[in-house]
Structure formats: C-alpha cells, structure tokens
C-alpha cells in the first residue's frame, strides 16, 4: 500500500449529518465481484437525477472542487451498512482524507484499510473548515504531526496510534498479523481444552 504522510489540496464541503453508506454507494451497485468501478456511482442521488442525468454543478463533479483530495462533512458520517464498497467508492472519487465531527465505527475502520484518513474535529472547527473550503482555500493535513491547517487556522486531531503506524508505513495488515502465528496457535491450544465444542474435526 502507498504510504500516507501529508495531503494538501482544496476540499469539497458536504456538511450534511448522518450520511449513510447507502448514500455513499447504493446497494444496487454492490453486485460487482471486483474492488473497482464504484466511483462512478458514488453519491449517486446527489450527482444524478432519478433518470440518470448528471446534475449540473453538483459539488462532486462541478469545476469548483475538481481535484479535491479532502472531503469535509457532518456528524456520524458513514453510518449504516458495513460495505467496504463505500470507502472504495470515495477513494475512486479522489479523496484521501475525510474530516467530520464523528464517523460510524465500521466505516472508519474500513477507511484505514483503504489508505483513507478520517479526521475527527469538533463541530466549530469543522464549520470553520467548511467556510475555508467554500472559499477555495488549500487545506493541509499532516498525519505524522496530526495537524490540519489552512489560511489562519491550525488544529490538532487525535488518531489511533496503531492505525497511524499502518497508514504511515503502508503496511499489509494480514502479513503483519501472520507474524503473530505462534501466539495464535498458543491461544488455540489453550481454548481447545477450555471450549472444545468450538472446534470440529
């Protein structure tokens, strides 16, 4: 995986609360057996009319926020289904970082696996960044320092140290865990005695 250190770009402001994963990528598009191809359907109800025509100047396709790598949004972003297609779709739109007052747990976990940084900031700071984004200012995010800055604002954010290590190192999590093979076997030897009914054959 590519290493994640810094992102500097303009940002797309999308300050709506409770954006669920059905809005990020509707279920009817989950039929692919691949990991790609979801971007074109991302935020479909916001980008297209019911007849499938592109909505003029919607924030995701309009000129104004073209090339934005940062998405700024509302409380409880990513709630609903556990579909990893949601971060896949968001990544295909070009976003590498999402800023919101809070994220749904499963969604935030899925983002880490897909090299997307989720930054939680208090509502007032998010509001200020929305204004900055609307004004077209560059926003700079540094994962190593855990900071967000733009124009005359400077914010620090909390981030899970293990996830930070993964993103900074571009690590393959499965490969990393397999190095704990001995501990996993030891655990299994112990529980085969304690709860043998959980093992078959």
């Amino acid at each position, binding site marked *: 995986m590519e290493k994640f250190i810094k992102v500097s770009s303009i940002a797309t402001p999308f*300050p*709506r*609360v*409770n954006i*669920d994963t*059905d*809005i990020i990528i*509707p*279920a*009817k598009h*989950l*039929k*692919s*057996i*691949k*990991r790609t191809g979801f971007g074109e359907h991302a935020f479909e*109800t916001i980008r297209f009319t*019911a007849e499938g025509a592109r909505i003029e100047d919607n924030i995701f396709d309009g000129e104004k926020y073209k090339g934005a790598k940062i998405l700024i949004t*509302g*409380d*409880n972003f990513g*709630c*609903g*289904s*556990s*579909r*990893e*297609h949601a*971060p896949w779709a968001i990544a295909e739109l070009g976003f590498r970082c999402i800023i919101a007052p*809070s994220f*749904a*747990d*499963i969604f935030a*976990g*899925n983002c880490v*696996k*897909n090299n997307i940084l989720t930054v939680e900031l208090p509502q007032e700071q998010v509001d200020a960044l929305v204004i900055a984004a609307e004004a077209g200012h560059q926003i700079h995010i540094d994962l190593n320092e855990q900071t967000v800055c733009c124009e005359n604002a400077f914010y620090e954010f909390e981030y*899970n*140290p*293990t996830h930070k290590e993964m993103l900074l190192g571009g690590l393959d*999590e*499965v*490969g990393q*865990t*397999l190095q*704990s093979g001995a*501990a*996993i076997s030891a*655990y*299994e030897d112990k*529980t085969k005695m*304690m*709860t*043998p*009914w*959980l*093992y*078959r*054959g």
Partner: protein
Amino acid sequence: MLKTMYDKIWGHHVVEDRGNGMALLYIDRHLVHEVTSPQAFDGLRAAGRKIHRPDSIIAVPDHNVPTKDRHLPNPDPMSTAQLTALEANVKEFGLEYIPMDDVRQGIVHVVGPEQGFTQPGVTLVCGDSHTSTHGAFGALAFGIGTSEVEHVLATQTLQLKKSKNMRVSVTGILSKGCTAKDVALAIIGAIGTGGGTAHVIEFAGPVIEALTMEGRMTLCNMSIEAGARAGLVAPDAKTFEYVKGRPYAPKGGQWDAAVAYWASLSSDDGAMFDKEIVIYGSEIAPQVTWGTSPEDVVPITGYVPQIKSFADPAKQEAVEKALAYMGLAEGQAMTDVKVDRVFIGSCTNSRIEDIREVAEVVKGRKVASSIIEALVVPGSGLVKYQAEEEGLDQILVEAGFEWREPGCSMCLAMNPDKAGAGEHVASTSNRNFVGRQGPGARTHLVSPAMAAAAAIAGHFVDVRDL
C-alpha cells in the same frame, strides 16, 4: 475488578495485547455471504494464502437470491456472477456451504442461530453490519468490512480497539401489541443513530428478560442502527434451551461444561458502564418511522414533527430533506399516512414468531385493495417449513399476501423485489434510508403486527385498535 459481559468476552479472546486499548482478538465464528466476500477470496488467492480454520465458517447466499421462480435461470447476470463466485470459492477453499436449494438456506443472521452456530460467549463476525443480531445469545458479534473478512479468513483474528461499555435498561412491562421491534425503535428514537457510537450496548432489565430469543434477536439486530459496535443480552435458561440440540450445539458431556461457562458470562453486579440509559417499557407504544433515518420515529398515536422542534440546524436541514423525500407534511397524523406496499421479512423480523404475529392479525381479513403488493419473505427455509407446518402460509395467502422463498429481498432491493418511486412501504426491516428499497421508495419501519395491520387498513393504524 468487576467486569461487564463485554469485558469478559473480550478478555477471553485476546491473543495479544497491543496497548492503547488495541488487541489482536481471536474470532471463533465467521459467516460468509455472496456480496462482501468475493474480493476477500481474491485477496487470499493473490497473496497465495490459505484459510486458517475452515471449520469456523458457514457460507450461505442471501442478499441477492430471488424469492420466487428459483427453478428458472436468474435474470440478473451480475447477481448470478456473485452467486457463482461464492460457490466456486467455497469449493476451492473447502468451506461448509448451504446452497440455495437447501432447506437450511436463508439470511445469514437467521441461519447462524438456527444451526446452533451462534452460541453464548463466542466472537462472531460477518461482512454485514446486522451481525449484531447474534448478540441476543450473549455472543460478541459485529459486522466487518471486506478487508477484515480477508483478515479473519487468513488469520482467525482481527486487530481491534476495545469499545466502551453502555447499558440500556428497559424497565416495567410492555403493553399488549408492543414488540421487540417497538422497543428497538423507541431506544433509537431516544438516543439517536449516533447514541451508541464507539460502544457495545448491553440490553438489560425486566422487559429484555421477558423477551423471547426471537425478540432479543430483533432488538440486537438494530443496535447497529443506534450506532453501537454490537449489542448483547445476557444468556439465560431461554438461551440455553434455544441452542440445545441444534446441529452445532455442544453435545454429550460438553453440554454441561458449556452451560456452566455460558452462565459465568453475565455482567458482574455493580460493574461500571461508561454510559447508562433507562427506558420505561410500559410507556412504549407501537412505533413507526416518518423520515429517512431510523431515529426519525414516533409512536403510532403521534404526528410528523415540526422542523423547528429540532434544535440543531443541521438536523433541521436533514428533516426538511427527509420530509420532502417522504412526501409528508409537518403535523400530519401518522395514521393518515397511506401505505402502497408491505414487506414482512429481513433479518430483523422474519422468524417464526414474526410470521405467527402477522398471521394472527390478518386471519380472516383481507389486504386492502389499494395495496400494490404485500410480501412475506421468511428468513430461512426452516422458518418457511415450520410456518407451512402450522398452516400460516394458508392464512397469509388467503388474506392476499404473497408467500416467498427466503432471502434478504426488499430489505435492500438487490434482487427483483423492489418498491417503486414515491410508494410508501410498511416494512419490518431495519433501514429507512433514501432509496434503500428501490430508487425513490419511501420506507416506514414498523413491527410485523403493525405492518400486517397497515396491509389490512391501507394506511398506518394502531394495531391495538384493530
């Protein structure tokens, strides 16, 4: 130190403590379905990795299986590709598979408990957020994304951060006509869809203890709609009775050892919770949602709220959008909302008890002529079989319902079962999101009895008045 049930189950499964509240956690059980697994199997193949413990897995197709005409070729090539991919993957990796023509086939969250695969004290995962359902047994069960599915397949573990403890106590007794679904909706209405974020919720109190296992599953199913990582109910005699004798249940001498272990899992008296909520069970009336988030809910005796009644401007904006989408006006009585379509099914409410409740309401009555379609989709082939043994299918069909084959169906409309744009659906599922049951469809979440009553009346009614 006094521990909660969550603390205990978590503690029993730590393989390695990684500090900062993070741990490598052992996963006992893994349910696999066709939608969220193909990319995970691909990942394994690409890395040349094996499945660590094939005996910990059951695979079953559910999300996009057709619910009728199964003998005909599936008209949707994309669905077929997912179903075929699952079949090929289980064969290649040697997994236990329940095919579509097997009587045990159904929604993963109905199948797991039925097979005795779901047991107290286990860690259970599935690439589906409603895995929280299995918490009804005192299992730590939660949904995961596709990368995590791959991680569990390859390592039998997940790297996780421990959630916080929350307890929701429901006191008193439920009034007649109120069900576990109404309890779930009332809780979400009270704490909001973010109310449980970063927490595992233990449901407790006399109302929860009085619920059947089916009812507890309905409740835990919707803990994800409250934002929680998982829901839990302490295992008791009802739980043990339910598990006993099922195919995966402990047998012989192991049964007693298992029960002794399970009985030790309940939260210690006096254990501390980071958050505590008390709900008065006797005040809960049958619930119905009016908006596009499960927290947008009122009692059936209530009205669509005024936008101004919400303090938060962002929520006001969301409510305004929701009302426009739902075609409802502020102050409208919920009993004035007409219903076009009825869906009884989903992992929330498709078990035998739910079907019995529906049959009881509709017996000797007819579905209103204005209803376009009223579907009953049992959660599994075994539920279907049992309902037919009891003659419930006859009652439903005579009343004007369609009786279908098991699957997720109109819960998320990945198969041909969909609602049309602008139609109001009385649905026993768990999500009323924009477009969830078809583009433009207007979902109202209700209990099975309330959905049945709406089918008969042609609009929402208080099932207690029927």
